[in-house]
């Protein structure tokens, strides 16, 4: 589904991602883990078109995404839950979700999708007329996830979804991610919460200093002594 080949990118000539290749198959959860500054978020920004790439390609369902603007990439079926949520703070929950489904295709299914979102996140139904800037961190994360799902993605990318969440909410969120996969949407998740993430992932990539240093089935990666020491402190 998503195929990244030797991608290089960075900011203002400073290269951060030094040739990463990875793949996300249909209906699977793929994780990218790694420490601070490993280049995970930069890679995500390049995939979604927020920053230009210097070389390499991103392909989605056989189509080239490199060089497209973020809105065009989204319309191909790649939706991002960005790091730090990036909601529209002075708009209500419902308006945020409306924007998530503002493309021609998604708009046709807005009503049914909205109902589905309120089923998955009943909390948002209670809050639907509230400005998202006034919500708690957990609720904001729900809005960000629902907003991306409103765009009916074939691939959902999540950048640090556990950021700033209480442990109990982190659990809930990972449950949601599994459910999204089981509905038939592939998920690419970027996380610093290595243990949790790899445990539920079908495949995992470990990134250090802008290159892939390890890749394997999520649970097998968790058995790796080096990884345990570096990221889990055991």
């Amino acid at each position: 589904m998503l195929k990244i080949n030797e991608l290089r990118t960075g900011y203002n000539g400073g290269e951060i991602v030094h040739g990463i290749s990875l793949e996300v198959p249909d209906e699977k959860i793929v994780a990218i883990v790694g420490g601070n500054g490993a280049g995970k978020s930069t890679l995500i920004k390049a995939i979604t078109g927020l920053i230009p790439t210097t070389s390499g390609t991103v392909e989605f369902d056989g189509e080239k995404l490199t060089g497209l603007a973020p809105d065009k990439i989204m319309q191909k079926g790649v939706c991002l839950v960005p790091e730090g949520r990036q909601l529209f703070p002075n708009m209500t929950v419902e308006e945020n979700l409306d924007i998530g489904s503002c493309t021609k295709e998604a708009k046709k299914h807005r009503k049914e999708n909205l109902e589905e979102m309120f089923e998955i996140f009943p909390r948002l139904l209670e809050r639907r007329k509230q400005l998202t800037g006034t919500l708690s961190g957990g609720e904001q994360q729900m809005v960000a996830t629902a907003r991306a799902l409103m765009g009916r993605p074939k691939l959902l990318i999540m950048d640090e979804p556990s950021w700033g969440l209480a442990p109990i909410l982190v659990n809930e969120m990972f449950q949601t991610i599994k459910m999204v996969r089981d509905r038939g949407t592939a998920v690419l998740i970027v996380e610093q919460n290595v243990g949790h993430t790899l445990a539920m992932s079908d495949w995992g990539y470990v990134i250090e200093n802008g290159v892939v240093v390890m890749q394997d089935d999520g649970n097998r990666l968790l058995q790796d002594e080096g990884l345990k020491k570096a990221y889990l402190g055991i």
Partner: protein
Amino acid sequence: MNNIFIAILHGLILGGAYSLIAVGLSVIFGVVRIINFSHGAMLMASAFAYYELFTRFNVDPFFAMFFIAPAFFIIGFLLQKVIIRPLLIRESASVLEPTSVMLFTIGLDYAICNLYLMIYTSRYKTLNTWSYKNYFRAFDNSFVTQYSRIIAFILCFVVAFGLWFIINKTELGKRIRAVSQNRDAAALCGVDVHTTYGIAFGLGTAALAIAGAAMSSFYLVSPSVGNVFGTKSFMIVVLGGLGSIPGAIVGGMIFGLIEQVIAQFIPSTMASMLSFAVFLIVLVLMPDGLLGSRKRK
């Protein structure tokens, strides 16, 4: 009738005209985050369009605006799409605040003003329209003002309401607000950011062209007329809160009231000086303007 009461009425009427001129500027800033320094020049350009239509074809500006405003929408849209967009894209790669676009609008202001100076010379022109020649009278003839000013006052609320409605109650408005609150997030949701910017820019310039119809009917038309109202528009918009439509109305009314009411007690040049003083005081005490909201995170 009490003089002060009449002065307040005059102040509100004048304030309406000021607000009408300023509201487009506020919308453009609120969405695109660009301070359009060519605002005054575009107002002047629209006034000359009305001048031409009136002197050549005897079309009243308040009728002509139904054609000129859409034309200015297109001009604003294209200005954003063709010139400002590449500048924004090139710059967003390196810095956060779009300063080159701001400098571009300053240059554009000079270019337009001097072009019109070349064509029309600096002579003042008046449009002897019906609403310019005829006066509205009330309270036993103690309140007398041109009909064009009354129309400007009414138009101020119509235009402000129209813009408010588009921005707050329509699907397009949702997109406009989303882009203004978080450009990248809106793009990630599939919103075409630069087209939305173009529409916002177009709406702002169309509102300005409507203001031009009013202005050319109660004031003079000359290439320097933009400077008179341009500077005031900036102060009004900042005073009321950048990007706030009700703020533009409140700011305009305050300016109108200061100029008309205070002028009852002190020379009118001092009164307009006072409006600058009020502007500075508000800025110091309330940096976001009277109705400007601090950004929620």
